[in-house]
């Protein structure tokens, strides 16, 4: 028992090594870009760090930026655990956001205790159904989910483009809906930052995902399918049922990112509001090793990068897009972990 535990802990530290080294490598390559601009990388990174963690207010902003990434990260990680690659989080969060906005706008006179959950659930249902399509196509016809989720992203973009410029176009000229009712708002927690009760939902989601995956029969089945579908089927687990279920839950999680952005941050649906939150979810899941706790820390890191980027842009000559480059590099280094491991091994030998 003790030996097992020890093995586990050394496994965890080895698991942590690749993500940490990947982040450091990405920052190192990012430093080259800072040098191109003619700035001191240490200075730029200092500004970045101070602005994202330096005060209570900046920490709140970092958490606010991390909130949607926790949802999309969980979404991608959840699907991964079933052996599915959900690149459709972006589309799922758009339809979820739109559904939440529509409920938030159209129902009036409801008490908050009914209206807010209604809007959230509407978003989750929309996102879940959206993800069910590639899930069903995979389960019933064996079509790989990657292409279908990509295709459905674009269908979601154009569908919400249509809704926000057509039937649900608000009173103002801009491509956005009217404001949602106050009864559907996720309350602000730390004014003047836009941190809202969505972060509480995110933490609850982390715990629930952990419980579902590791403490329930359903989660066991989902992981079994992800581990080895043939063996799972042989053991009496329905692969197709679990594929659809995992996609639906993944889509519902992704949609919460959109729901939080609409009900907690923007207060209305804005055309193409998402700064690639869904795609960043892939990075967050990967960096967090597809574990809910890992997803949390990865999302906070990415939230911090986004928060610090604005200040770095303002206070130095380094454009904020540096952090987009860094995020891409992190994904690359984590994905090519054989490279990262080799670099670590070489370091150890030296």
């Amino acid at each position: 028992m003790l030996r097992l535990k020890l093995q586990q802990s050394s496994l965890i530290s080895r698991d942590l090594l690749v993500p940490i080294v990947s982040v450091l490598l990405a920052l190192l390559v990012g430093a080259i870009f800072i040098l191109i601009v003619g700035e001191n990388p240490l200075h730029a990174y200092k500004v970045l760090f101070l602005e994202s963690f330096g005060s209570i207010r900046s920490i709140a902003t970092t958490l606010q930026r991390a909130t949607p990434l926790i949802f999309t990260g969980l979404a991608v990680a959840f699907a991964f655990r079933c052996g599915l690659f959900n690149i459709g989080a972006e589309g799922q969060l758009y339809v979820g956001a739109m559904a939440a906005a529509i409920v938030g706008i159209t129902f009036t006179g409801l008490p908050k205790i009914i209206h807010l959950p209604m809007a959230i659930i509407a978003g989750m249902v929309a996102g879940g159904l959206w993800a069910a399509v590639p899930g069903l196509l995979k389960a019933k016809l064996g079509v790989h989910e990657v292409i279908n989720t990509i295709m459905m992203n674009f269908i979601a973009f154009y569908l919400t483009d249509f809704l926000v410029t057509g039937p649900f176009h608000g009173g103002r000229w801009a491509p956005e809906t009217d404001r949602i009712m106050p009864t559907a708002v996720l309350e602000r927690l730390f004014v003047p930052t836009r941190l809202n009760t969505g972060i509480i939902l995110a933490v609850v989601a982390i715990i629930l995902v952990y419980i579902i995956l590791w403490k329930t029969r359903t989660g066991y089945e989902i992981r079994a399918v992800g581990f080895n579908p043939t063996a799972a089927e042989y053991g009496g687990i329905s692969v197709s049922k679990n594929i659809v279920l995992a996609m639906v839950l993944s889509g519902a999680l992704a949609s919460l990112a959109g729901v939080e952005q609409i009900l907690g941050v923007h207060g209305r649906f804005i055309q193409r509001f998402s700064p690639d939150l869904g795609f960043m979810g892939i990075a967050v899941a990967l960096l967090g090793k597809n574990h809910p706790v890992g997803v949390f820390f990865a999302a906070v890191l990415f939230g911090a990068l986004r928060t610090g980027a604005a200040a770095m842009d303002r206070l130095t000559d380094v454009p904020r897009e540096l952090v987009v480059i860094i995020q891409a590099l992190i994904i690359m280094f984590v994905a090519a972990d054989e490279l990262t491991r080799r670099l670590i091994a070489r370091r150890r030998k030296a």
Partner: protein
Amino acid sequence: MWEYITFFFNATILAAALRMATPLIFTSMGGIFSERSGVINIGLEGMMLTGAFMGMMVSHYTGSPWVGLLGALVSGAIMGLIHAVASIQYKANQVVSGTAINIFAVGFTVFMLRTIFNVAGTSPPVPSIGNVSIPIIVDIPVIGQIIGRQNPMVYMALILVVVVHIFLFRTDWGLRLRSVGEHPKAADTVGINVFLTRYMAVIMSGALAGLGGAYLSIAHLSRFGDGMTAGRGFIALAAMIFGKWTPFGALGASLLFGFADAVQMSMQELGIPRHFVQMTPYILTMVALAGFIGRATPPKAIGKPYEKE
């Protein structure tokens, strides 16, 4: 009825469809190279965007859009090389590596645009490739209006399709490339270098996507704009799938999707929201994949890193 037909199928719209199809043709040919060799390439979008940017840059500094085209080709090839190193050498998940390339390209192009030109959004105008007329053909009624006077890159794209077709299905190299994508082990046994073949294919893929991007910045327009590829890399991917991973199939799909792009404004005039027209390429691709219009089956070894025994 006739009115409706001429409303959509007139020389102006068909010529526009051909123009819209051109970047898709280049990029989908690139996609065919990569995927036929067994490497998924969803990084086409990012490779295109990089090509669009570098094409603009090189054209700006050399004053020659043709040299710009070369710059786009090389920069796309470098992006392809990165994808190859990550996914072939270090066996990174090919979808993740492609996603990283897409995100990198967005960050890189905006970062460089702001650093070099100190502008956000759009680059200054740069020299671009102008249209040419083909003698005789340009004088033929209707056909002349459609293909008689176009950008040289439009003709290059059409020729490319034939070249890729011959390469893939009529040469030993093409046979090797396809065998690596279908049965890498068997290919290895008969002495084909699986790694080298895949490397070449993915680099080629990036180079062609780079040209597709450059068409937007230094042929169709004469400037670079943030995110100017606007998902065309993914439409090209869809065209490749819809065309069942064959050059002529992808050409047909590109023309169809280009046509959808060209008619969306006219559709709007008829009261059909253009957003629904814009959706059609993606819906058609899903339908094709599901097997409702002749099943689209990907190469067998796609997505699997090759492990030499």
